[in-house]
């Protein structure tokens, strides 16, 4: 296979680079060892920062966030809910920090408005009655899955750029300072292949240093795991931030019909080992309850975590390292067609993509400017099912009594599953439950896939999409994956739900006993 540019990593940055390059007429292949947004782009708050979070300790990152926030609200409004945000302090919080805050905002160019704590509590009634200060900022929430899927869809529409899912880079063939070939492996089948590209871009998030090392280039990174919690219901209209230096359990972000509470910052030795823990969940809940007391009793449906790919300039923990990004041209490693980009924020992904694409185009001799600062991101119909709350609206609007509701929590009908399979057929010929879950709200409601996973599997068998005991393996994988996030959030009502789920999956269906290679239980 051949392409102009091979991009490693299909997160917001990788797909953003593909779109930026495609807008300049460049063909790209994006290769991803998992699926779209498998790393930090899928494991974050979904917060489009106003910049207010960083004004106290990182003026540059705050300024970048502010500028990109304005751009994305204008150019990709379908991915953004412009809900606004508050920074609030409660009794006991640092009074100097509170007093200094507007000044820091002014210095970073981040607009802020002081509001009366009573008014803030009127705006968001769940706020603590111990509120002593409140500021309004331009935070918003953003759907990172829709964003990356639409970036990719646009790149495909413009230059036929493609995405290779479940395809990992295992080596580079280097000749005379150039990567002449990239060795790949399909992480599902083990099948090996290679690809030739004029330029290679490493946007592998928390794995950027490993990919660079394969080419003999050195990047020093810090992996900071952040765990977040998903509430059963949306708790506020706006983003709510704790007005204090960035810490645990400080932000509650609305995500359509739910809210996301987070996050922790735990340095881990290996990004492959990231997993939300009970201890982090407890910290988030107890800290969050300081600004919103009902976070203590609310129902959480799951937790998840992402790994911040932080560029460590020596020393410092995860909180103190800059949220700015770094672009490496790797010329010091004697490579002329390889670059890496890492660090940054979801909010600044477009800027990272633009700067990276600028470097790539300089090397390609392409003189066209970046258009992502002015060109709106087109809405792709294949992505509509990822939007929280959209499926119920569509289902109600075109309700056809023969269209079974396979997911009752999020109201995803059978027709949606069929549409996703149809529109993504060339992208994933083997429609596993996980791929469907990523492209719809399946598995994201209060039952966390316990029931819809079984119903969708039955539907896929009925349609002939599944036709062997491998379907049972796919069911197992789906439930395993959903459990990963539920495990640390199982108490109160969600624990009851989990007991029912396991009674169904193991008690009735015996999925823990399934071994498709050893059919002796039948014989």
């Amino acid at each position, binding site marked *: 296979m051949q392409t102009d540019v091979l991009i490693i990593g299909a997160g917001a940055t990788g797909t953003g680079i593909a779109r930026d390059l495609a807008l300049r007429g460049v063909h790209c292949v994006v290769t991803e060892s998992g699926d779209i947004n498998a790393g930090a782009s899928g494991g974050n708050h979904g917060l489009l920062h106003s910049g207010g979070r960083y004004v106290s300790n990182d003026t540059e990152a705050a300024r970048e966030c502010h500028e990109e926030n304005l751009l994305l609200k204008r150019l990709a409004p379908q991915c953004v809910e412009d809900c606004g945000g508050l920074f609030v302090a409660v009794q006991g919080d640092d009074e100097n920090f509170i007093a200094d805050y507007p000044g820091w905002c002014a210095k970073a160019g981040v607009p802020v408005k002081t509001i009366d704590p009573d008014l803030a509590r009127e705006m968001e009634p769940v706020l603590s009655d111990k509120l002593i200060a409140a500021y309004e900022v331009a935070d918003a929430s953003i759907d990172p899955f829709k964003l990356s899927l639409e970036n990719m869809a646009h790149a495909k529409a413009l230059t036929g750029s493609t995405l290779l899912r479940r395809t990992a880079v295992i080596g580079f063939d280097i000749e005379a300072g150039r990567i002449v070939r990239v060795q790949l492996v399909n992480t599902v089948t083990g099948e090996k292949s290679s690809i030739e590209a004029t330029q290679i871009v490493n946007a592998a998030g928390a794995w950027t240093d490993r990919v660079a090392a394969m080419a003999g280039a050195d990047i020093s990174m810090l992996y900071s795991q952040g765990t977040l919690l998903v509430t059963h219901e949306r708790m506020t209209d706006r983003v709510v931030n704790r007005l204090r230096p960035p810490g645990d359990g400080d932000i509650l972000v609305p995500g359509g019909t739910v809210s996301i509470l987070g996050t922790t910052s735990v340095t881990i030795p290996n990004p492959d080992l990231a*997993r939300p*823990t*009970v*201890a982090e969940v*407890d910290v988030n*809940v107890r800290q969050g309850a300081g600004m919103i007391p009902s976070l203590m009793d609310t129902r959480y449906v799951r937790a998840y975590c992402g790994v911040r790919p932080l560029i460590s300039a020596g020393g410092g923990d995860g909180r103190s390292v800059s949220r700015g990004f770094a672009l490496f041209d790797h010329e010091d490693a004697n490579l002329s067609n390889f670059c890496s980009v890492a660090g940054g924020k979801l909010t600044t992904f477009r800027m990272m993509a633009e700067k990276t694409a600028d470097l790539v185009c300089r090397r390609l001799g392409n003189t066209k400017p970046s258009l992502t600062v002015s060109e709106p991101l087109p809405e792709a119909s294949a992505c509509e099912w990822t939007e929280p709350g959209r499926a119920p609206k569509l289902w109600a609007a075109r309700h056809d*009594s*023969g269209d*079974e*509701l*396979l997911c009752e929590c999020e109201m995803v009908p*059978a027709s949606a599953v069929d549409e996703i399979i149809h529109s993504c057929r060339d992208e994933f010929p083997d429609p596993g439950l996980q791929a469907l879950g990523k492209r719809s709200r399946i598995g994201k409601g209060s039952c966390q896939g316990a*029931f819809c996973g*079984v*119903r969708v*599997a*039955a*539907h896929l*068998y*009925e349609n*002939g999409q*599944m*036709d*062997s*005991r491998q*379907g*049972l393996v796919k*069911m*197992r994988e789906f*439930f*395993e994956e959903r*459990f*990963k996030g539920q*495990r640390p959030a*199982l*108490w*109160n009502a969600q*624990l*009851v739900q989990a*007991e*029912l789920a*396991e*009674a*169904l*999956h*193991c*008690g*009735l*269906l*015996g*999925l*823990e*006993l*399934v071994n498709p290679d050893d*059919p002796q*239980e*039948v*014989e």
Partner: protein
Amino acid sequence: MTPSTNLTCDLAIVGTGIAGMAAAVFARKQGLSVVQAGSTGAISYTSGVFDVLGAIPASGKDDGIRTIHQPFAGIPALLEAFPGHPYGKISPEDIRCAFHDLIEFLRYAGVSYQAGSDRNYRVISPAGTLKHTWCVPKTVLPGCIALEEKTPTLILGFKGLKGFSARQVVANLKEFWPGLRAERIEFPGFESGELYTEQLARTLETPDARQRLAEAIAPLLSDARAVGMPAVMGMHRPIKVAQDLAMRLGVPVFEVPTMPPGVPGIRLKEAFEDKLPEIGVDLFCQQQISGTIPASDSPFTLRITGQPVEREVRANHVLLASGRFLGGGLAGSLDGIAETVFDLDVVQPETRSNWYQVDYFDPRGHAIHTTGLQTDDKFRPLDENNAPVHPRLFAAGSILAHQDWIRMKCGAGVAIATAYAAVEAIAKP
């Protein structure tokens, strides 16, 4: 509010799941007066088949799960791996006696069951996996026999009934059962829209509906010598519905259990709710029951709260059969697991981090399912000094510690057998 009605009884049963219902049957057989109350209960979420023992979870992470084909012969191995399992306090003969008495009552209530001899039956699940279980509704039994004999069989699905695919059942079993086929039909009278098993079951109570269903199936029979379908064959006289359909088709028909809440569970709930009052149980469903532990020489004073009238119950004995988290007998909070009625001691891991293994399908199962009440040999819950909390307070069913009914496939067995043993201890102290 002042209680408007006072009740006295020999035994108050807290809980309306399988354990509580079975205990009521056994206690009435012993001549005890019984008041029973509980919240919604998980009974309609049961599969309808009664497991005694189907598997022994792994002891180490790399061990496998042992599938058990002979449940009674397997109990010593279970006790070796899980020494505190409630089966250690009851003999296999008593487990059989308990099942016998309950099956007799259920037959009287219109729901017929068949217990295995020494071996488990293998029941087809809606996913096309096999469930190893000891006692099955007679409407399920012909499917176990058809599987055993590899009879050419038609599995039938209904358009609009989600969560059940005949093609899925066949895809997962056809390799070993070559004569298995799948068809999907419109259920007569329900040609469009979503179907619900409960609604279909009630429909099939009428001969007319059965005739129309048989007419729809007949052209698809071909060489099939048995027909399996989702569990919808009637609510109150399922065996009559099954026999009638079989007669019209000329081949045995059988049920495949469906996702919860399914018809076999609802049948049990309705059978108990209809017939327990007939045998003299004062049954209060959908009610909360609360109380405190009295001095050891005093009777219990319990309060049944709910609509429309509150009642005070004076009981000489109490049997706690309130279930686990789904049933409401246990509650898990950020700080730990508590028993919800009397705040009894719960055997549990040190921290919440240890409730669950990292992997969902870990062959060892999850520690949270073996949490619960520790009891003496008479099934009386123990306090922190290992002494009975009260000489006349007993516990039965899934609230007991050291059993994992989900992974061991021993839910009905533990419920029925421990209810039996506790009632024996109450009736013959």
